[in-house]
């Protein structure tokens, strides 16, 4: 069911555009659907972006270019080289800078007529309501479940729309939550998946263009909300499959029993979202499995001594192609059915990229009766840092 978008915000303080602004926005102004009235709505709109990464990049660029008068950017992270493949707000010279500040500089350069505020902080239950209250629309471009539930709940408590987008590898989802009479995130997903049942992004990866497409859809929905134009995605979940290049649409209903936005809500304030999500969204580290470890230097010493060691690489074949330390490749997912290929009488050192998947492998093998097995602490990343810098990190 498509919901007509409603005009948001109060009477516009700005009532005219400068000549420079008229020139800048001329392709909007000559469209009857935007026109001077719409452009003034954009100028008076206040939008808060949660996350300035993959989704936040097209969001920030397009909303700034379109003339959204006040843009807030919330991110506590720092730009690194692996971000540049998809976070197109940033350039190589931004590596090492705070994302919110680097994005603020980029967007201010793109459009000096708007106000861009950077909030170099992690969104928490303690600061969310205070941060949100000065904005009309909140756009969720985060990457973890705790923050997504936090954004949702804060939006419902304050009665603000939440323009939602999320991605995984080549698949995306987008909708608008928190509209009057519309569903919220909890109506769709009452509970987060337990950690471990959803592959993390590090295992999953993401095709660089995908956040560009999904973030652009969020930007379009945000602009429609501001203009009060068209049919909003509220009440509809847009699913995008980039490989099949297919868009599908599912109906989203407001759940009358929703604990947040239902008839008798039971949640009246923000909660501890890390606890709610079993501590660990995708971003937070999984609880450390207590397994025997070996450091990269210890492994090097054993190898130099010529000790009989079997190196078990539990990553995926395409990761092995990026770099390897001549281990025997047996991906974690195949371990249960291929466990007979391993010799439990030999010393085994398991490794992956960072040590997390191989800890699971060691835990599994110990339960299967293997005793002479260690996890390479810190994985191939630590091997590169501590033993052989010629091994590339990814």
């Amino acid at each position, binding site marked *: 069911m498509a919901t007509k978008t409603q005009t948001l915000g109060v009477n516009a303080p700005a009532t005219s555009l400068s000549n420079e602004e008229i020139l800048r926005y001329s392709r909007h102004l000559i469209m009857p659907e935007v026109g001077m009235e719409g452009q003034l709505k954009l100028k008076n709109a206040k939008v808060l972006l949660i*996350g*300035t*990464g*993959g*989704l*936040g990049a097209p969001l920030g660029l397009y909303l700034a270019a379109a003339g959204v008068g006040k843009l807030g950017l919330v*991110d506590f*992270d720092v730009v690194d080289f*692996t*971000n540049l493949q*998809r976070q197109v707000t940033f350039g190589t010279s931004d590596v090492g800078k705070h994302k919110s500040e680097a994005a603020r500089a980029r967007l201010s350069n793109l459009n000096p007529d708007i106000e861009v505020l950077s909030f170099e902080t992690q969104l928490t239950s303690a600061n969310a309501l205070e941060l949100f209250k000065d904005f009309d629309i909140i756009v*969720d*471009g*985060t*990457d*973890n*479940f705790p923050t*997504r539930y936090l954004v949702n709940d804060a939006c419902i408590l304050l009665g603000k729309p939440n323009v939602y*987008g*999320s*991605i*995984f*590898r*080549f*698949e995306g*989802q987008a909708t608008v939550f928190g509209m009057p009479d519309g569903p919220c995130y909890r109506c*769709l*997903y*009452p*509970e*987060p*998946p*337990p950690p471990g*049942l*959803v*592959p993390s*992004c*590090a295992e*999953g*990866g*993401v095709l660089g263009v995908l*956040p560009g497409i*999904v*973030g652009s859809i969020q930007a379009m929905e945000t602009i429609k909300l501001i203009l009060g134009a068209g049919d909003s995605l509220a009440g509809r*979940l847009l*699913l995008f*499959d980039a*490989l*099949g290049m297919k868009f*599908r*649409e*599912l*109906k*989203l*209903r407001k*759940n009358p029993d929703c604990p947040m936005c239902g008839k008798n809500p039971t949640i009246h304030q923000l909660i501890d979202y890390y606890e709610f999500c079993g501590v660990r*969204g*995708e*971003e937070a580290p999984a609880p450390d499995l207590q397994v025997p470890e070996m450091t990269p230097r210890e492994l090097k010493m054993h190898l130099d001594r010529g000790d009989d060691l079997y190196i078990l690489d539990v990553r995926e074949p395409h990761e092995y192609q990026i770099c390897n330390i001549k281990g025997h490749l047996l991906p974690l*997912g195949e371990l249960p059915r291929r466990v007979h290929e391993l010799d439990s009488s030999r010393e085994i050192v398991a490794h992956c990229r960072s040590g997390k998947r191989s800890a699971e492998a060691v835990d599994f093998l110990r339960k299967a009766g293997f005793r002479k097995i260690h996890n390479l602490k810190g994985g191939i990343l630590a091997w590169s840092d501590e033993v052989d810098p010629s091994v590339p990190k990814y």
Partner: protein
Amino acid sequence: MAVRVIIPTPLRVYAGKKDSADVPAQTVGEALGGLTTQYAELRKHLFTDDGKLRSFVNVYLNDEDIRYMAKEATPVKDGDVVSIVPSIAGGNSGK
């Protein structure tokens, strides 16, 4: 009678990397049961140990959420599409 079950990206690794499967079924529950018989590793991602559909797994028949129909007992007809819609959270740093 066969329905097509659409397997989302995060679960394809447990389903022979397939994006969909055609399963003979009379109900949505049978379609999911048929799918997990074909791909046993999928089972724990969709069902709890006592065989209930996990609460964070959304299942749609065509464009309608089965929670607002007869849930797993919702009847299906030839050519229907059953979608499994998982929560995905990625979007920012994607580390």
